[in-house]
């Protein structure tokens, strides 16, 4: 009857003690399993988010900084960011994709065409948002915000040269019976007595479907910045033809309808953010700042990081509590079994085998309790972490930077972050969690039996079996 068999006999034939130990390890195991599961789910979600989402940043105007600088120097004038500067930032090693977009909202389609945003007060006129692009591959496509249904993206030549080409949403194509190769006429300018709007024919080179993009850009058209710019400039020039427009009116119109660009930088890695900020700071006027879109990894991963920190603390406390509780409990049980241990020692059993028997007993009970708690702990952790995630996301949402609808980065802001975070966060039982939990469990058990094993090494069979005080 080997020490392992003796251990099994002890477990089976002393059900009371086995049950007490099982319940205690089960309870502690639930805390540990829950913490391991939540921690691993948070880690997995962070990794998944990193692969799903790159940090999205933009360059924005910092009102507070400008106000502070203006107080020092009231003659300070706002300087636009030069396209050369943007291009320089765009080739930074921290940047994965970069683009800037001419912000043109509300160009009208010629009569006979319709978009999803029709104004009932202006029958027969449909407005559409245009999204200027400088990156021919289209960052929104690269980042999965849209999907190309048919056709292609832009070519370098189409972007560089003045070419009237566009990618239109599937909805618009279906509504107007358009396909790749069709021409879509845009009207630009004022419909007055003196002048009529000019029509620009854009050739459709691709049709896309918005995947996760929300809001007014969902049905926008993608067109080269240069084409949009040209369209805008011509419209402005048309104004001059009106004899009623004075020079000052014209300047005011030019200022109002001036094209400006919003920027979008998709970074390679969230850890690059600070380095990118530092690099950009040297190239831009002091009142510009790097703003982070809400669904960037830094922001989205914040609740996960908070959860990870909380559960790591819980895990450490639970492991220490488990070690202490189990050590004391096993030692207490061993004191009850000292006669049995004395018998083994009087028969000449090696102390390490006696310790081995105790270790096997605890390990078998722990294995059962840990396996049970693995499942229940995982179930509990699912419910707990859902609440934790909701609370943390609500808390972190308050700190998110906001963009105006016309900003390029706006499309990367909003519900998609929450959705992706919720999608990425699952408390399932994968191999890593199971292995990690068993490793932590068995390390805890092994540490817990150190004190009892020390107790065994101090036992003297003569004192146990032939009388005398027991020494610990």
């Amino acid at each position: 009857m080997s020490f392992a068999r003796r251990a099994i006999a002890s477990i089976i034939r002393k059900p009371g003690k086995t049950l007490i130990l099982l319940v205690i390890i089960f309870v502690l195991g639930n805390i540990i399993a829950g913490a391991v599961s939540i921690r691993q789910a948070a880690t997995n979600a962070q990794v998944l988010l990193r692969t799903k989402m790159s940090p999205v940043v933009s360059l924005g105007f910092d009102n507070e900084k400008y106000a502070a600088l203006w107080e020092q120097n009231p003659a300070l004038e706002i300087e636009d960011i030069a396209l050369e500067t943007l291009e320089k930032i765009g080739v930074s090693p921290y940047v994965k994709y970069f683009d800037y977009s001419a912000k043109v909202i509300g160009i009208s389609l010629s009569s006979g065409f319709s978009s999803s945003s029709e104004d009932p007060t202006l029958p027969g006129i449909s407005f559409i948002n245009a999204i200027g692009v400088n990156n021919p591959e289209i960052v929104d496509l690269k980042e999965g915000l849209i999907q190309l249904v048919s056709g292609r993206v832009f070519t370098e030549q189409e972007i560089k040269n003045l070419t009237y080409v566009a990618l239109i949403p599937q909805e618009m194509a279906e509504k107007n019976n358009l396909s790749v190769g069709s021409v879509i006429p845009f009207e630009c300018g004022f419909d007055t007595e003196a002048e009529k709007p000019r029509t620009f024919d854009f050739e459709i080179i691709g049709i896309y479907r918005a995947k996760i993009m929300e809001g007014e850009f969902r049905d926008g058209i993608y067109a080269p910045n240069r084409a949009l710019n040209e369209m805008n400039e011509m419209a402005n020039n048309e104004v001059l033809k009106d004899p009623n427009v004075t020079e000052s009116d014209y300047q005011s119109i030019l200022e109002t309808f001036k094209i400006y660009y919003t920027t979008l930088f998709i970074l390679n890695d969230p850890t690059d953010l600070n380095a990118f900020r530092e690099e950009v700071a040297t190239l831009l006027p002091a009142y510009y700042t790097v703003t982070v879109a809400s669904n960037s990894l830094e922001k989205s991963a914040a609740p996960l990081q908070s959860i990870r920190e909380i559960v790591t603390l819980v895990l450490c406390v639970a492991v220490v509590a488990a070690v202490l509780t189990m050590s004391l409990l096993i030692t207490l049980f061993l004191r009850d079994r000292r006669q049995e241990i004395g018998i083994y020692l009087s028969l000449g059993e090696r102390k390490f085998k006696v310790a081995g028997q105790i270790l096997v007993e605890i390990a078998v009970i722990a294995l059962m309790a840990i396996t049970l708690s693995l499942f229940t702990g995982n179930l509990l952790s699912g419910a707990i972490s859902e609440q934790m995630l909701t609370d943390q996301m609500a808390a972190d949402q308050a700190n998110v930077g906001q963009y105006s609808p016309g900003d390029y980065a706006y499309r990367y802001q909003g519900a998609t972050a929450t959705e992706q975070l919720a999608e990425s966060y699952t408390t399932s039982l994968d191999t890593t969690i199971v292995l990690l939990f068993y490793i932590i469990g068995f390390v805890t058990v092994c540490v817990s039996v150190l004190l009892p094993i020390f107790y065994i090494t101090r036992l003297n069979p003569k004192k146990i079996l032939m009388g005398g005080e027991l020494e610990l």
Partner: protein
Amino acid sequence: MSLVTVSKVNYFYPDGDARRYILKDVSCTFERGSFYAILGESGSGKTTFLSLLGALDKPKSGKVLYEEQDIAAIGFESFRRNKIGIIFQAYNLIPYMTAVENIKVAMSITDNKLPKDVNEVAYNLLDYIGLDKAKADRTVNKLSGGEQQRVAIARALATNVDVILADEPTGNLDEDMENEIVAILGKLAHEHNKCVIVVTHSTQIAKQADAVFKLRKGKLEAMDN
């Protein structure tokens, strides 16, 4: 050649600056095939003497030899495992195991070569000392005192050792049971060529023994039997 030799053994407890001797210069020899009784009053050092013979304790000075080899050199644990069997007054069986499992525990611990079918050997041993299979399969706390002591004797024999040490083996038993146990111990010495050393108060056991020693004031004296 003596099987067990006790050579100038001293055992004492420190008592302030002085020493309180339990055993003083004790020397004696024990042979195979003999049944020895060691008598003595309570506190005379009988149990201490037995614990030294059984390698449960170490003498302060002097030696205990087994086949002329110091048991310290053999190793106390190894000596207990392979050379001796001990029977205690309180039986000291593992309470949640059956009689036969108690025997098998001892057989699994020893390094001595034993027959392959330990189960059969264990049942045969129990049968030999008077416990049938039904009782052999009971947990020991469901057996009477006499039956438990038989299990303890069978366990001492199970490892195929030459020396059987017994500490007041009949101390908790009635007279009839005592006679039976003494008969078994005598049989082990005389029929199975074991060296049986019993520490006891009982004159009944002393009468059956081949040689009797008495411990008095730390000295071991041979008595006429």
